[in-house]
């Protein structure tokens, strides 16, 4: 890149504003526009600043409207272009709070501090709520329908998932903006309770998924004299149905805990499948 020369941030980013007039300029329409733009939060994702570029991109219409002074706008843009990373479904909540602060012409270091303090916890909550709860549940239900050839499976999945998704993206933008800095306090109090509730639902469902969706049975019959015993139906099913899936899941869990990569486990699983069918175990 031709633009490698480093910019002296201190020269441009000022804590106070040249034009400190406080004025409510953002309309509901502006907020919705920025919520739409937040869908491109990860468009310029990279390992140096992660979502920093997309974050600034989605805030731009608001920043332009709030900071009519050129130097103030430059200071705000450069400040926001730094490292940023959070969960894409919850980002609009941070945006709402930050926009309320920008409009109120809070000091830059305060805005930056709030932004950085919020992105970590929200990233963790988002992972627990969406990647580990909403997605497995909606996709699991959709897949169980689709597996039996029902066309409603994929459609139901996409519709239910996006009702939650877009309700959050737009709802949280307005909620964050209205709550302003007060929201930060209410978030801190319930962070742990929300993530605990999500984990309870998630693990209950994972327990059921393990029992339902892993297909791992013995196909071997034991010959004891003149008696034939079907190992799976005659023995294991009598003790605990789906014992093998349960044991194998915990084996994988243990391997992951020991620092093995998921790819190793995929390789191990393929080897087990091939060896098992070579010796006619399964």
């Amino acid at each position, binding site marked *: *890149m031709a*633009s490698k020369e480093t910019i002296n941030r201190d020269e441009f980013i000022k804590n106070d504003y040249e034009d400190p007039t406080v004025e409510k300029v953002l309309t509901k329409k502006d907020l919705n526009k920025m919520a739409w733009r937040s*869908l491109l939060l*990860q*468009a*310029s*994702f*990279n390992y140096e600043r992660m979502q920093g*570029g997309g974050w600034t*991109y989605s805030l731009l219409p608001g920043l332009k409207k709030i900071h009519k002074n050129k130097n103030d706008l430059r200071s705000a*843009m*450069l400040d926001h*272009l730094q*490292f940023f*990373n*959070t969960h894409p479904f919850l980002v609009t909540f941070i945006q709402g709070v930050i926009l309320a602060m920008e409009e109120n012409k809070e000091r830059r270091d305060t805005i930056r501090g709030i932004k*950085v303090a919020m*992105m*970590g*916890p929200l990233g963790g*909550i988002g*992972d627990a709520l969406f*990647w*580990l709860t909403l*997605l497995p549940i909606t996709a699991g239900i959709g897949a*169980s329908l*689709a*597996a039996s050839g029902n066309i409603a*499976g*994929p459609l139901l*999945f996409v519709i239910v998932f996006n009702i939650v*998704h877009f309700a959050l993206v737009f709802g949280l933008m307005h909620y964050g903006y209205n709550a302003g800095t007060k929201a930060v306090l209410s978030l801190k109090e319930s962070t*742990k*309770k929300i*993530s*605990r509730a*999500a984990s309870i639902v998630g*693990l*209950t*469902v*994972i*327990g*059921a998924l*393990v029992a339902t*969706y*892993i297909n791992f049975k013995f196909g071997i019959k034991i010959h004891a004299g003149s008696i034939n015993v079907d190992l799976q139906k005659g023995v294991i099913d009598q003790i*605990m149905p789906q014992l093998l*899936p349960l044991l194998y*899941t*915990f084996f994988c869990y243990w*391997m*992951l805990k020991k620092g093995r990569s*998921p*790819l190793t*486990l*995929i390789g191990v699983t393929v080897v*087990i*499948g*091939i060896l098992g*069918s070579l010796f006619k175990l399964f």
Partner: protein
Amino acid sequence: MLIQALLIGIWAGIAGIDLFNGLTHIHRPIFTGFVVGLILGDWQTGLIAGATLELVWAGMVPLAGAQPPNVVIGGIIGTAFAILAHQDPKIAVGVAVPFAVAVQSCITLLFTIYSPVMHKMDNYAVNGNTKGIDRLNYLGPIILFIFYFIISFLPIYFGADKAEVIVNALPKWLISGLSVAGGIMPAVGFAMLMKIMWKGSYAPFFAVGFILAAYLKMPILAVAILGVAVAAYDFFMGSGKSDDGDKVKVAPVNDDLEEDYSNGI
């Protein structure tokens, strides 16, 4: 075949953008499997293959910045293979995963290459060029579209007819072995979820879910609703207060921007 390969390429491009932008999750195998099935004229096989691949990728979500094998290419190539080579979707898993791993390393490379673009954005900010920042942000999805288009067009256009020949030449135990492995594979995904979420005090909830499904054969939705009820009871009784070792990291409140908050994405 050219038209179908082109359509699948375009669909892969759209799904590839959705994986990082928009996030409507039309990129999940359950949906891409159905669409690929429609394009190839066998939506029923597409549905079933998509459902199988979806479960394999159940736990493979982007957690704490770690990138799992690429779900877009895995779902699309896996389904296309199952339909074109007339194979059981479970075998398609064995074909899809190595492909998806290779693609993901390319994506990692792309994220590395995109870092210098941020310095360009800095320059635009200094000059007050907001349109320039917009443009650089639009450039990312365009690159992704072209990348996914090529990656899925080529194997479908050139390898579709060969795929069946290759599979027929394979020994029986290998095919049935891959099928067995495909059936077990969801265990890896579930274990990945558990690695993040598991805590001794949550074990009873896992056990309840397992017992309801294994012994009582209850459907997943019923178990999920019961889980919500239990979680709501727990939430309102406030037992979350005594809970300290939560997995959710609460960031220290300070102004140090150099801290690594590798959550999200």
